[in-house]
């Protein structure tokens, strides 16, 4: 398989399992953590795909697998036209020019014994590239570009604040002018005022260099700000994927509804009048995932069928993929966020994507092939949908 025109990354049926070993004298494999279990998506040129989900859902494993920092158990990864899962570490080297990574923790991701200049210039040395004007000139230009003082070339990471360290990580990632940057929670550890600076920087770099991002984060408001499309992950599986405005204004998966309703909104009038969908308990163990739909043990829509049949990820409307037997378009009044505000948003221009628009009408559902048609059963009695107070 190759990437289509305008597509920088194609991930097909990605599976990454980790062995679970016993602790005995002779450790042996007693099971598998199915951290990622059959995930497929694409990222377009100059596009940002946001990947959200609770911790433990497998986001980091997807991010690391895409760059072969962990070897996938199965599936295909195509970066800029080239399938990479079969490549040796050495054969992966040219790929690393095209795809780079930014990590969450600006404190741990940088070698404390190297100067900032050394850290940002490392990709040139590793790849044996001599940039025009020399490494130092190129690195200082990068420092300037990401908002660092080029005179701090010889300083060490511990002399910088969290936000500045993240800028160092970004400068290193863009040094080789990659096409794709995989960002794993790049602003999660930062205070809000610094977080906003970094989000703006990533946005500007995208426009300037035509960068594509796979942007992993658990903060739904941050992901909305930066993404053109959003994929929602749960226990190793994609639950829903759609253009940004569709995910936030017209989600169909019960898990997406639950996540959105749980985010407190910084407006006391709106927030105090809202209700949450309470998800019971925690994420189940990925060693022993529930049968059928992995979300069913916490789902307010779950029925008999959900425990026996795995719901496939189906394109219910153009570009809007949902893995659910009983998707919901409309929640009871007061649950979720103020849709009227969100639905008036202008389309996304950067990638030419348009929001898929309103909610799935019954006519649209009827036009689906019988096998793909979700059962449209009304929301069950509301025992799990509680008023905030």
């Amino acid at each position, binding site marked *: 398989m190759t990437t289509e025109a305008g597509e920088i990354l194609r991930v097909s049926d990605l599976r990454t399992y980790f062995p679970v070993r016993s602790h005995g004298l002779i450790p042996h494999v007693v099971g598998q953590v199915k951290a990622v279990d059959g995930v497929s998506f694409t990222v377009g040129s100059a596009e940002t795909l946001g990947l959200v989900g609770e911790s433990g859902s497998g986001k980091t494993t997807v991010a690391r697998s895409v760059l072969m920092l962990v070897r996938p158990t199965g599936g295909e990864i195509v970066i800029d036209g080239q399938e990479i899962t079969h490549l040796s570490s050495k054969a992966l080297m040219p790929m690393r020019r095209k795809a780079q990574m930014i990590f969450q923790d600006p404190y741990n991701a940088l070698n404390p014994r190297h100067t900032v200049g050394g850290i940002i210039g490392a990709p040139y040395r590793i790849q044996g590239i001599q940039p025009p004007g020399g490494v130092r000139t190129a690195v200082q230009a990068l420092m300037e570009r990401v908002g660092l003082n080029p005179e701090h070339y010889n300083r060490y990471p511990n002399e910088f604040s969290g936000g500045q360290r993240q800028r160092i990580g970004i400068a290193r990632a863009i040094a080789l002018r990659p096409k794709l940057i995989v960002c794993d929670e790049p602003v999660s550890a930062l205070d*809000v*005022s610094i977080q906003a600076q970094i989000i703006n920087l990533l946005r500007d770099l995208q426009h300037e260099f035509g960068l594509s991002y796979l942007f992993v984060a*658990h903060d739904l408001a941050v992901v*909305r*700000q930066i993404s053109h499309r959003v994929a929602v992950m749960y226990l190793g599986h994609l639950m829903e994927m759609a253009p940004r405005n569709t995910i936030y204004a017209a989600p169909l998966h019960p898990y997406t509804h639950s996540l959105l309703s749980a985010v*407190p*909104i910084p407006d006391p*009038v709106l*927030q105090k009048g809202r209700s949450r969908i309470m*998800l019971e308990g925690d994420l189940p163990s990925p060693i022993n995932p529930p049968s059928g739909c992995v979300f069913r043990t916490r789902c307010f829509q779950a029925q008999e069928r959900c425990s026996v049949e795995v719901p496939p990820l189906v394109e219910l409307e153009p570009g809007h993929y949902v893995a659910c037997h009983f998707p919901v378009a409309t929640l009871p009044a007061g649950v979720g966020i103020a849709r009227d505000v969100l639905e008036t948003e202008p389309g996304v221009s950067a990638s030419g994507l348009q929001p898929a628009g309103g909610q799935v009408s019954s006519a649209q559902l009827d036009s689906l092939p019988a096998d793909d048609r979700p059962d449209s059963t009304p929301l069950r009695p509301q025992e799990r949908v509680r008023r905030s107070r």
Partner: protein
Amino acid sequence: MTTSGGPTENPFLEIKDLAVAFPTEDGLVRAVEGVSLSIERGRTLAIVGESGSGKSVTAQAIMGLIDRKSAKMTGEIWLDGQELVGMPADELQALRGGKVAMIFQDPMSSLHPFYRVGSQITEAINAHRKMGAKAARAIALDMLRRVGIPAADRRIDDYPHQLSGGMRQRVMIAMALINAPELLIADEPTTALDVTVQAQILELIASLQGEFGITVIMITHDLGIVADVADEVAVMYGGRIVEVAPTGVLYAQPEMPYTLGLLSSIPRMDRELSERLEPIPGNPPSPISLPPGCVFQPRCTYSDRVAAGACLNVRPELLETSAGHLVRCHLPAEERRQISRDVLNVLAGGS
């Protein structure tokens, strides 16, 4: 809420001019300076601010957790008629876990890894009242049920590591509530949790507050949580309170430029998307070398509108701008309000 004058009846908790400083090798860390606050019984006060602004140190001061040998602490803290700053250590000890309780971001800061959760809770009971083992266990079990631990009769004999993060958080809350505290200080209790579990915990605190009439101080950096739980809000920056207001007022008519900066920095789901966020420029100040005037001045985009460079040289005071609304800023009130209207208008999608 007021900090001076105020009603004739004393508030449940009143802090007057609190200052905490830590001498270190690098210099004196002025963690908290001139903090004055008051809370009425049964209300929820949120303290919001970025990391390093002095939120946790303020909480530790109320809890009597500041080490008086290594730190300098001045000011007054009045809790229900008792002054805490000068209180002997053993009396403070008796208050902690009794009348006042605290929960943290990391539940393992309250839980011992080697003891079963049930015995840790019964120990907390026995520290404050004497009763038989059976009775104590029954009370512990009841509380574990109330905080929503499923199969509590089995979980009570678990060790902390056998529980998920959300469940450990609930156990810590159960332990904090076991002696029916009147004041609960929650220091970023959900920061390490997923939004789904955060929703459970916030709901739990709200329902327990309703049930027991507890006064709550909620410390957070999340303006969404503030909007959700707080009756009043204190915004902290550089070790001081820079704005205090009833929650509705703080979001509708914020006046301190830092508060406006925070509101402009956060991406939010309830508004039309703007292409760019409007971050506060620069970085927070070091508590070792605070700016001599307004601590926010180096990052403030409005300080040039104040005459005679006052922002650079003179510490502004926290002054009342309307009933219950206090602001620490040199800008004239009319100018602040105009700036606020303009900024909020842009945020709302106008221009």
